[in-house]
């Protein structure tokens, strides 16, 4: 998968590119708005990492311009700005996600993968976490190549947890998704489904675990 890193600070560009390459992505780097536009015209990228402070123009304006075109890849914004207004401006301009410097490289890789795991993204069909693979088209789940029998609702919950791997999915969001499937939802429905799902994953020896954040929701964590 090919990524574009748009960053004028040479050392950061090198390091981000290096970190992403170690995660087996193909990475191009550019340092200006003009070069970024040219690169995006010529090559089809799966995602872009954009620094907001570029020498020949504001990254936010590039973001707005890109968003108006079809087929723009998802964009992760990196910035040293951290006030609310800046964040709101970034998300309004069409950033798909946001990281504030100094960031952890693992976090950059995780966020880029999350963007690629979105429905319609290049990693959006076969979702992976540890030794677990969820096929979103075939609707089945394998651990180490062995199919794990899961109920329809359990697969739906797992899908949302994998798409936001390592980040909390609020219970209300899961309820909304299951409600959309036309199910009758008791107040206990989600905890019961998660309980069964967790037990089945442990039995299948999956190296990822579902954590409960009481009062908020759940998150899936890959285990080392």
């Amino acid at each position, binding site marked *: 998968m090919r990524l574009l890193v748009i960053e004028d600070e040479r050392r*950061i560009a090198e390091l981000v590119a290096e970190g992403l390459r170690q995660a087996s992505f193909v990475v191009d780097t550019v340092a200006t708005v003009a070069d970024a536009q040219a690169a995006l015209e010529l090559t089809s990228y799966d995602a872009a990492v954009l620094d907001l402070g570029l020498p020949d123009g504001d990254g936010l304006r590039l973001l707005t311009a890109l968003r108006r075109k079809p087929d723009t890849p998802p964009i992760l914004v990196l910035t040293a700005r951290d006030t609310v207004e800046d964040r709101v401006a970034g998300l309004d301009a069409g950033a798909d996600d946001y990281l504030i410097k*100094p960031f952890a*490289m693992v976090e950059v890789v995780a966020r880029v993968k999350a963007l690629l795991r979105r429905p319609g993204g290049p990693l959006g069909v076969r979702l992976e976490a540890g030794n677990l693979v969820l096929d979103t088209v075939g609707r089945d789940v394998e651990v180490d190549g062995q199919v794990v029998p899961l109920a329809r609702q359990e697969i739906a919950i797992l899908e949302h947890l994998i798409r936001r791997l390592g*980040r909390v999915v609020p219970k209300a969001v899961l309820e909304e998704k299951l409600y959309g499937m036309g199910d009758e939802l008791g107040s206990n429905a989600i905890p019961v489904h998660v309980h069964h799902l967790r037990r089945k994953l442990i039995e299948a020896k999956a190296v990822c675990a579902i954590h409960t954040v009481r*009062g*908020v929701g759940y998150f899936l964590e890959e285990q080392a």
Partner: protein
Amino acid sequence: MKRASWPRSLEGRLLLRLGVLLGVTLIGGLASGIGAALHAAKTLADDGMADKFVAEFMGDVGWMFPVLTLAVLVIAAWTLRASLKPLRAVSTQAAAITPGAIAVRLPIEDLPLELQPVVMAVNEALDRLAKGFETQRQFTADAAHELRTPLAILTAGLENLPTTGEIERLRLDAERMNRLVAQLLGVARLDGQPLDVSQTVDLGEVAARVVERFAPLAAKTGCSLAFEPAASPVLVTGNTDALGDAIRNLVENAIAHSPPGQEVTVGVDTAGAVWVVDQGPGVPLEDRDRIFERFWRSRERRGSSAGAGLGLSIVAEIARAHGGTIAVMDTPQGGARFVLDVPLAPSVVGSRDTDL
């Protein structure tokens, strides 16, 4: 001490003086009028014309005195009220100036000429203040950028190296440095610019977002994080970002003091309080006042590399800026319970839905 009876308003003073003047004129005028009339009456008495003269005097001139008096008073009051009315508008505008909304300037167009210099001087003072705030804001933003970029390079560089014991220690050092810089910038921001605490904030929502964000990090240290929402949205007057910062610092502090495997609980109650409870050793009585001071660290932690003693001072600062309080107490299990209290929004405008 102020003088009790003398009127302090312009209108009151003017009316009082005019009234006195008119009174004196009236009495003087009447006295001399009556004297002249008496004198005339005496000479005319023989002719039997006195009654007729008095009747004519009252009919022609006398009635004008009270009418004139009344007219002068009415005109004076009306003129004053009309010319000072724009001052009301100025006061209303001035009341709207808060630390977060310093762009407001007072209108001078309709003011009487005498009052314009005062209002203009106030406007100029506001300009100077706004410029000062802006310089400070710009400096903090620049400093943030200048410090964060090299730190980001250092952090990412260390992460790309193969993991060894020494590299792992350096990564922890860099992480500590990152945290310290972030906190120092937070402190600088709080010191340099007044906080806009006029937003209506759902405290439960803010706390839930912090828990959401920190739960995965807590899991990495072996703790779990839980949230106990209030029964309904808790609307307070404040600053969303700053309150999030305060809760985040309390949560980070609780995680740092929690033994692995224990739960840190964050809760909100409808009185406008957020509490964070950990199962750690608790805070000894003698430290409870000092724990919120800048750079203060407990005896056990002074030699260690953990924490710079800024987090809780930031919480205290944010509580103060909101006109709220922060306190620490024991839990029956021996852990610490931090309670951040913020004033509720004066009137609950509408009712908002929450996620949970």
